[in-house]
């Protein structure tokens, strides 16, 4: 079946009865298919038409994002974070996702997407609760319209669809943008979310950051599809393939997809082709599964460098602007460092406070037990107050 010439298929066309009554194509497949190559703006004619203010804003955000990634990774070494999954190399995706949204819209990040949340305006210290380990979600999702950073892969995608659907029913003009990795596209929840979104014509945009790996597993062991964007056609939604290191292209495609969704046009699947420059997390050893040459090739296609080159060629970036961006990033990093060194001031009794609206009688008993233990500990009567498992 590699070639389509089945024995008698060639005979077709001479006689074409009407399709059986239940079968009608609901959408034309052709417009759903992604381009054969990732869409680019930087370095093309299209870039000339891009808004200089936007490009400069993107540049500043990318520089700040990279510094943030470096700082967060450094904090793991100092034991200030339990773990950090860096998005170095993927800053364009992170920043463009945030900037494509209006204030009323919702962002559904995966565990790797703290930078997107921060670029959206979230306080980095709040964003890092999960990875610091002081709580799970350190911010109010409703206040920021940022869903909790999601650890189980692809499981937040149906949430995004449901939220967008609810917003559409209320007529609020709200769009949800949900982020997932190349690996996450293999999960059943990815499939179910995209299908519900298309059937409901929910105002949601799915952004796949295809960074080539799911921890150590390369894309070729993840899918045999022509591209991840091609998955869109199976749901009846458009698929778009974008250079994930081209901040301008991403911003354009995502903004357009958000506008389309808001206008009632339904969901879009966007695949951003990018690369994770750092290891999976600080705990990972990337040399086990990839070579330096590959990493170097991607460094040569760096999102900041690509944008800087464009800006420089167009005379939009002078030394002053470069220094300002760097200083701004340093200030953010210094602030983060300082505040992450502070004691988060945890209250162990919080363990029982939020399991239910009202603690069950069982939880009240258990809370009393811990309270007594803590009091005893405070009075110094406990023999061994410290250490896991004591």
């Amino acid at each position, binding site marked *: 079946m590699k070639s389509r010439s089945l024995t008698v298929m060639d005979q077709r066309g001479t006689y074409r009865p009407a399709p059986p009554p239940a079968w009608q194509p609901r959408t034309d497949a052709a417009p759903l298919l992604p381009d054969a190559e990732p869409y680019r703006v930087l370095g093309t004619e299209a870039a000339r038409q891009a808004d200089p203010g936007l490009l400069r804003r993107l540049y500043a955000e990318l520089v700040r994002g990279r510094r943030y990634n470096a700082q967060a990774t450094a904090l793991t070494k100092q034991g200030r974070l339990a773990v950090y999954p860096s998005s170095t190399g993927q800053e364009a995706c992170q920043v463009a996702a945030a900037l494509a949204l209006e204030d009323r819209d919702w962002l559904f990040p995966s565990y790797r997407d703290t930078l997107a949340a921060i670029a959206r305006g979230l306080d980095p210290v709040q964003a890092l609760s999960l990875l610091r380990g002081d709580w*799970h979600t350190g911010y*109010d999702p*409703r206040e920021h319209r940022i869903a909790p950073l999601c650890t189980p892969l692809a499981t937040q995608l*149906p949430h995004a669809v449901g*939220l967008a659907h609810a917003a559409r029913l209320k007529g609020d003009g709200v769009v949800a943008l949900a982020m997932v990795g190349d690996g996450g596209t293999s999960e059943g929840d990815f499939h179910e979310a995209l299908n519900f979104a298309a059937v409901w014509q929910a105002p949601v945009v799915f952004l796949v950051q295809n960074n080539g790996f799911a921890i150590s597993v390369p894309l070729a062991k993840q899918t045999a599809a022509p591209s991840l964007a091609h998955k869109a056609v199976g749901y009846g939604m458009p698929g778009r393939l974008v250079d994930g290191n081209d901040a301008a292209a991403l911003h354009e495609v995502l903004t357009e997809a958000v506008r389309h969704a808001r206008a009632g046009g339904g969901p879009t699947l966007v695949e951003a082709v990018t690369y994770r420059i750092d290891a999976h997390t600080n705990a990972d050893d990337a040399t086990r599964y990839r070579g330096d040459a590959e990493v170097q090739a991607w460094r040569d296609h760096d999102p900041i460098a690509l944008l800087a080159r464009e800006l420089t060629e167009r005379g939009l970036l002078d030394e002053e602007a470069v220094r300002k961006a760097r200083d701004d990033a340093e200030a953010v990093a210094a602030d983060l460092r300082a505040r992450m060194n502070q004691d988060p001031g945890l209250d162990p009794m919080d363990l029982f406070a939020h399991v239910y609206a009202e603690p069950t009688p*069982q939880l009240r008993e258990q809370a009393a037990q811990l309270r007594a233990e803590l009091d005893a500990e405070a009075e110094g009567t406990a023999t061994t107050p410290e250490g896991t498992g004591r």
Partner: protein
Amino acid sequence: MTTVAAKPAAVAAKPATMAQALGRALRDAMAEDPAVHVMGEDVGTLGGVFRITDGLAGEFGDDRCTDTPLAEAGILGTAVGMAMYGLRPVVEMQFDAFAYPAFEQLVSHVARMRNRTKGRMPLPLTVRVPYGGGIGGVEHHSDSSEAYYMATPGLHVVTPSTVADAYGLLRAAIASDDPVVFLEPKRLYWSKADWNPEHPLAVEPIGRAVVRRSGRSATLITYGPSVPVCLEAAEAARAEGWDLEVVDLRSLVPFDDETVCASVRRTGRAVVVHESGGFGGPGGEIAARVTERCFHHLEAPVLRVAGFDIPYPPPMLERHHLPGVDRILDAVARLQWEAES
């Protein structure tokens, strides 16, 4: 099917089934609160395979009572998102075993969203799961899955055994600001009680057990589909000289230690009865906590009568599996009566 008496209704009472009471609860909740949305497989046009949602799509429209694509994780997952936006979704899982594909969403998200966000993102969401056997269902249509839900902190687990409770507890579940797994005993769907459809029954608070029958010899602790069986056993036990008390838990989470332990302290003997498999089933928890709290009142160990530790049997053999009157009486007989007298 056993007929269970409900609270007497005020006027013009006529018989209603548990299925009708559940449908009425959904309707009243939807009428009162536009945030309540019903969703699931076949809940719209068809009114559900058990007809619980019959008429809702007609009355409230497809957007309030929605036939979803066939994907349980997707159903529950999108319901989570809807609840995040302020709606109160009521999800129907078509059968017990078909809730398993949604298990990850339930355990990793539904049960944890409030806690994860320090209470900032509550999830008012009801998951209706028709459960249990005794209806001649083929494989995967008769599971008792309550042990899974009980072991998942963050969920309420509720199950009615009467027509009145079906209404009252489902209303309370939908009104709850926490996620509730609402287990509907399939074989009681057609059980009947008199009620007045003009005066819907009261909303029952979640978390309180009730004594369905008072007795002095021993306590049968049970819930859902096994309540009528226990009441029948209690009647039969009179012939043997035992006066059995029957406690209907109604809510597995939270658990009403007070009512249960008060009864056991009075009677000094207890048997836990449920359809779910015994090993690792709810009965272990119940027996253990009763023993912890009532040890010196106990004349005998708390015994358990449960389904066998086997996959649910095919229809032609299910009667051998289900805890019935005889098995309950056998257990009561083993409560070491000699030791007392």
